[in-house]
């Protein structure tokens, strides 16, 4: 179980956009890739070395990112495991390029298409292969949903008219978004279509500092159900594949990823609204087991909590921009990625039997 269970962390360094190196006085780069799993950050006074499962340098192709990050997750999805792939990083670090591909094209035959379209292709390739092998004995049903989490509210990207949706739990099916549209998929081409349609509905904002930054998390979920008939026995297996494009990390003030920032009091009446989170943090460090905090995890962590230290296969791609102006954000992304490797299910079996040995 050493293989596959822990969260895998990949770092990808994007090339600086054209012209950056010229305008940045001091040669521009704040990091160098030392090997396929180490990266050196030129921090002062001492440079810092980070080690990850895989480091993709600026020359790494989309195909090779896909093979190292996603291939194996899609495969285990066919074997009944849940899988999740996250992209993390500041705005402009290449998350969307990694996940989707070049932003101006809806054309997923593009040679630069990203992890998501490639996962579709691979998934349907595997399904076809399985079907051929098993003949009429095995059938598959693929469904997908595409939701957005913005300001702790959930919206359905496949139904732009829908209002906020809710997370619920089912004792057999786990966590689900109540009322989200589910579309049946029969080919990769259909999946592209759904993806393209939903992507256009995402919330994006411009500020004078950031040209454009996505302020929402987008979660594309594919459910793969297989039905196998073996003589009289019917075997049904179902698994989820979540493909997640997170909001720019600089925007995630409200999730656990932030560092030491203070929460501000709201302007009008609604002052001091985050006091609860502070108190929650105090309670968390207490050592007694029996306590309840009234504040739920963020919607995103609740939805994906299986993926974060449950029995699922999860990869995180941390995207960084090598420019020296991005030093601060890059450091915080690498620190986050380092922490992510440690994510484990912390809650322990409630075991208070002390050697009672009468």
């Amino acid at each position, binding site marked *: 179980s050493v293989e596959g269970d822990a969260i895998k962390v990949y770092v990808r360094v994007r090339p600086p956009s054209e012209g950056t190196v010229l305008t940045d006085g001091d040669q521009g780069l704040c990091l160098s890739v030392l090997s396929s799993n180490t990266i050196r950050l030129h921090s002062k006074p001492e440079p810092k070395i980070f080690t990850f499962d895989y480091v993709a340098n600026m020359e790494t192709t989309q195909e090779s990112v896909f093979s190292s990050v996603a291939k194996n997750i899609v495969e285990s999805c066919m074997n009944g495991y849940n899988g999740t792939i996250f992209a993390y990083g500041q705005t402009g670090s290449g998350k969307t390029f990694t996940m989707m591909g070049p932003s101006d094209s809806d054309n997923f035959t593009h040679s630069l298409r990203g992890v998501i379209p490639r996962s579709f292709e691979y998934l349907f390739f595997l399904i076809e292969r399985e079907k051929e092998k098993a003949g009429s004995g095995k059938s598959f049903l693929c469904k997908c949903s595409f939701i957005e989490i913005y300001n702790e509210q959930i919206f359905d990207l496949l139904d732009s008219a829908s209002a906020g949706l809710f997370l619920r739990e089912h004792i057999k099916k786990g966590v689900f978004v109540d009322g989200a549209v589910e579309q049946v998929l029969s080919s990769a081409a259909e999946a592209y279509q759904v993806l393209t349609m939903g992507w256009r509905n995402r919330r994006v904002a411009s500020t004078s500092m950031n040209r454009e930054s996505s302020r929402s998390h987008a979660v594309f979920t594919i459910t793969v159900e297989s039905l196998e008939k073996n003589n009289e026995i019917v075997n049904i297996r179902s698994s989820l594949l979540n493909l997640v494009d997170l909001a720019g990390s600089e925007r995630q003030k409200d999730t656990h990823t932030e560092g030491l920032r203070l929460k501000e009091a709201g302007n009008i009446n609604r002052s001091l609204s985050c006091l609860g989170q502070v108190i929650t943090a105090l309670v968390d460090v*207490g050592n007694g087991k029996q306590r309840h905090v009234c504040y739920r995890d963020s919607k995103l962590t609740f939805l994906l909590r299986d993926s974060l230290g449950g029995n699922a296969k999860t990869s995180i791609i941390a995207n960084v921009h090598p420019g020296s102006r991005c030093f601060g954000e890059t450091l915080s992304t690498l620190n986050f990625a380092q922490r992510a490797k440690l994510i484990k299910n912390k809650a322990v079996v409630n*075991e208070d039997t002390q050697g009672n040995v009468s």
Partner: protein
Amino acid sequence: MAAAGGGWAAVCEKFRSARTLSAVESRKDPETEPYRSKYSARALLQEVKQLLSAAEEGGEARVLAVRRAVLEYELGVNHTDTEELSAGEEHLQRCTQLLEPHRLSPDCVSLYIQAQNNLGILWSERDEIKTAQTYLESAEALYNQYMKEDGNPPLDPSEHFMAEEEKLTDQERSKRFEKAYTHTLYYLAQVYQHLEMIEKAAQYCHTTLKRQLEYCGYYPVEWALNAATLSQYYLSKQCFMESRHCLAAASVIFSQAGQVPSAEDNETEQDQQDLRQRKAEIARCWIKYCLNLLQSARKLLEDNIGELDPDRQLELKAQRKKEEDEKEKGRKKAVLFGTSDICDSVLAMEEKVSSVYPLDFQEAREIFLVGQNYVQEAKEFFQVDGYVTDHIEIVQDHSALFKVLAFFEEDYERRCKMHKRRVDMLEPLYADLNPQYYLLISRQLQFELADTYYEMMDLKVAIGNRLEELDSHTIKKINSLAQLAIKYYELFLDSLRNPDKVFPEVLEEDVLRPAMVAKFHIARLYGKLITSDSKKQLENMQTSLEYYTFLVDYCEKHPDAVHAIETELELSKEMVGLLPTRMERLRAKLCPFI
């Protein structure tokens, strides 16, 4: 001021619009341009600044400086709001520089404190929490010094751009000043939390909550949730009096929430549901309170084999009598929430449940019943359909309440029935639960069920030992309970296997102890199974030995596991030494002629 007249009125008007844009309009900005109004406000403030420099000639220097400081402050906040920190810092620094000589005077003190609050926030955004701390602590000190030396309601910063007739009342001034200071405390609470000065942070949270009540600056539901959460902090510190006070206040303030007519009178169904959920959350905090109080009392009362120690019980009862609650009263003054009205209701609420350790079954039962009522209340909202995790957690608490109550029960038969209740509530949930999504809870339930059956078996053995001879009914009962305990321990151990059904070579830290305890208990259970068939008995002993051996071998290979199961390991070693001899003897009896 000479240049005043119409010009000044226009300046004030611009300033006012800027503030409205920034505070009110900006909330309606489209998602694609989140800072549109803030940018317009910024432009207006720049204009005001220009006009002010033009008027510089005629004005009194101090007045002008203060007005300029107000503008620098507004610009500073504006820039930090729009993610331009460096510019924001420059403005705020200029503001405090201009005010430095006058910071203790009534027209400046509030502005100065607010500027320091904002500098504190700004430095925390840069992950420089120590720097933030110095600004905020100096704001706190300034407030205290001002209140000591002057204490009159100071001017609100916005008044520097108001016509004489619009100026605020003393009451309003004081309200705004106190609010700015409450913010200082609120930020300090966060600073201390980040610096891991937990106790201090809790104290500042408590004070913030207290001040919110005093100055009516709160939303009932939000306040109640915060207080309920704070109660959980006190629980982890075993401060039951403080914990109960927070919870009682939470319940009282929460009940206000229903009474206040909301802005839009027709509350949506969503709001109603939200309200019900919050109520259930507070109930869950109460459950934990009862559970902790009972469990802590149990810790005090139990002897070295986990039974109630009557000597200890007498001792504690005598001690309680002696200790008049003088000490408590002193502590209580420091944390009391609310003014007379609220305070009375809170005290009335507190009376419904004790905050001292229960020392006998009767006292324990009263706390148990309060906890059980809150279990029902919480379950009304957190139904299994829709809230699987929460629902099961509540049922687990219910089971834990029974478990600790059983400790206080002297009658073994009745005690056994209490454990049966636990099984009855947990078993059906476990049967339905899909471990693909709820692996962790599923493991918890397996373990808890195994443990409960184990305890029931022990009780039946104890009851049986009082009889002259074990009747067949009791034997059957003991064996079936032992088998059920084994079944659930095995299910738990199976859940640790990898997808290829192989048991891990090295156990993860978080399951190490439970897995070892499970192995150990299974070993003991095989030793307890009663059978008249000697061959069967030999088999059981063999199985028992295998499980004991597992423990010993594992710890030999992984010496760092020893600390987690010292007692169990010692006994296992002993058994690994003893069992083979016993088995040898049994074998000899079986085939005496070999």
